[in-house]
């Protein structure tokens, strides 16, 4: 009798002990977890990210005197224009001389973002004028380049996709360039929108050389008969 009535009590005792141990383990685990979570540790500090500064690679132009050794005037003129062409065919110039109604941008000459179109005067469409975003000078915070005359070259002066020889003949044709030779020289050597190409700012690659050196090369090319490459 006695043994029979003892059994459930012993079983209850065993169950209580198992739960007791399990409970202790749980409490201990929670305690350890809290200690781990709440243990003071240094707060993560923000670290400056190494920004790769795009120091534009400066390219120089050869001076006019470098072409003095070419005796034959026609060849000298062509060689001078080929040096001029290094500027004309740089993205800084080509981006605004597109073959479509849309400018390109960056050294990679991507299509302009946002979508814009030249409009009637090369200064954009009614609601999307160049001046919607481009101001009289570069804007530092947004990185948007600027000049008071920011606009596209006329479509007759499209350079993208043309050979250097074709660009040369186009420049010399007043029907397409809308410029006399004097005006052409002025545009190249003194125009300040053209001059932006040598001071583009914002990590953009400038056109080779300086505007003065470029102007001297254009003047020398015109003086030597303005010969064009093939």
């Amino acid at each position, binding site marked *: 009798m006695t043994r029979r009535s003892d059994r459930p009590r012993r079983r209850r005792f065993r169950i209580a002990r198992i739960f007791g141990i399990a409970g202790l383990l749980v409490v201990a685990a929670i305690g350890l977890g809290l200690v781990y979570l709440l243990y003071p540790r240094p707060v993560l500090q923000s670290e400056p990210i190494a920004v790769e500064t795009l120091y534009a690679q400066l390219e120089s132009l050869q001076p006019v005197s470098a072409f003095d050794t070419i005796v034959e005037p026609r060849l000298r003129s062509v060689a001078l224009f080929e040096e001029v062409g290094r500027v004309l065919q740089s993205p800084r110039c080509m981006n605004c001389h597109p073959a479509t109604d849309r400018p390109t941008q960056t050294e990679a000459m991507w299509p302009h973002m*946002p979508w*814009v179109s030249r409009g009637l005067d090369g200064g954009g469409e009614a609601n999307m004028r160049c001046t919607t975003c481009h101001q*009289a000078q570069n804007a530092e915070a947004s990185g948007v380049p600027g000049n008071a005359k920011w606009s596209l070259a006329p479509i007759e002066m499209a350079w993208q996709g043309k050979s250097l020889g074709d660009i040369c003949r186009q420049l010399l044709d007043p029907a397409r360039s809308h410029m006399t030779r004097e005006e052409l020289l002025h545009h190249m050597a003194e125009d300040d929108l053209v001059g932006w190409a040598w001071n583009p700012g914002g990590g953009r690659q400038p056109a080779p050389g300086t505007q003065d050196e470029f102007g001297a090369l254009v003047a020398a090319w015109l003086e030597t008969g303005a010969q064009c490459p093939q």
Partner: protein
Amino acid sequence: MVYAVRVNGSLHKVEADGQTPLLWVLRDTLGLTGTKYGCGIAQCGACTVHVDGQPMRSCSLPIEFVGSAEVTTIEAIDDPIATAVQQAWVARDVPQCGFCQSGQVMSAVALLRAMPSPSDSDIDTAMSGNICRCATYNRIRAAIHDAAATLRGEAV
């Protein structure tokens, strides 16, 4: 440096670096938070305001270039065209999240001022600089047509 800027009809004296974008002056200094900061690099149009009536991206307009121009923000556009646009926007339930919408409305109002009866392609061209991540473009285009019709006295 201190700049005097005309915003929504009143002159405000603002102390700021000359290259500070107009957008920051509007939002942080003048508390006009209806104009939104989307990208800060003239790509999205959320910050569009009118400068002497022309839509401009205020994130890309340094305060030193504002000069004596009159700046109008979404808080103050108020003429029959603006009213027609606002009503069409409500009727068409144009906004989704709404973030781009003050810029969209500013561009739409400027478009209807310049072009009372724009075609679909006129609208697409004029609004191409206003991005909507919720893609409400079809409703925007329909609402601009509705506003134009209302202004012509037609029933919508």
